[in-house]
């Protein structure tokens, strides 16, 4: 296997002056796309962490109200996303113990690697998690 690799590197057939620039271009594109994929993943992860923490609070309080919203926005701001770009829908307060509560959060991610081509693609990032309410109401 080592000899095959060495032959490939040393070989000069089919080599032109354009080989290196083309290789560089391809590698740059792949790496640039990798940056964006990581960005989308990290936005996803931040949203998921904040949503899951908030769901724990919602489970204890049987739902979503303005205090929970403040808590969620603070968590979002701490992770580095802007709370203005995040839209949330959640089950409001007033459910009984054992009922399902759902939290849906979504934001948009702008793809940066296509900016040199003067084009913007916006990828929606959405999270939905659910759990059961905890507090027993008489």
């Amino acid at each position, binding site marked *: 296997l080592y000899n095959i690799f060495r032959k490939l590197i040393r070989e000069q057939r089919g080599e032109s002056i354009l*080989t290196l620039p083309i*290789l560089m271009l391809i590698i740059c594109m792949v790496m640039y796309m990798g940056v964006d994929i990581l960005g989308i993943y990290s936005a996803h992860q931040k949203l998921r962490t904040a949503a*899951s923490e908030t*769901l724990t609070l919602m489970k204890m309080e049987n739902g979503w109200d303005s205090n929970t919203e403040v808590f969620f926005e603070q968590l979002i701001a701490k992770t580095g996303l802007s709370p203005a770009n995040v839209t949330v829908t959640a089950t409001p307060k007033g459910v009984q*113990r054992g009922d399902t509560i759902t939290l849906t959060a979504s934001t948009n991610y702008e793809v940066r690697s296509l900016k040199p081509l003067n084009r913007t693609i916006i990828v929606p990032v959405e999270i939905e*998690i*659910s759990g*059961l309410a*905890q507090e*027993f109401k008489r």
Partner: protein
Amino acid sequence: MKTIWALLGILFISILIMDIGTVYVTYDKIAGVTEQSLDSAIIAGVRPSDARIGETFVDKASAVNAATTVFRNNLKLNAALENSIMKNTSFIVSIINNADKPYVQGEVSTVVTALSPKLFGLNGIPIRVRKNQFQVSSYK
């Protein structure tokens, strides 16, 4: 010739990176969702009347039912616990009702669909996640 080999190599490496990423993300997701569903297993399994008198008994049937429902909803799986990435999934919830520290254990085993194992004739990469959730009772 060299360029084509390099392209092939880059393709192969990116497939490998993609597969590792898929497995890691799926593992991470399953771990978080399992935690939430075990939590709801305890909520559904403990009766409020029992909890008030300090009884730490978890009803198995309703706990398993609730955990499976939450697990399925959160990962958007169908009735056979499958989606486009996770195949052949099993979600086993067991309740350990010992006297002082009762806990619920969830074990998920699934096969993550990936490209690179197909070269060797396999369907995907099998992973297994196990989580314990202790029952927190605040009775004094």
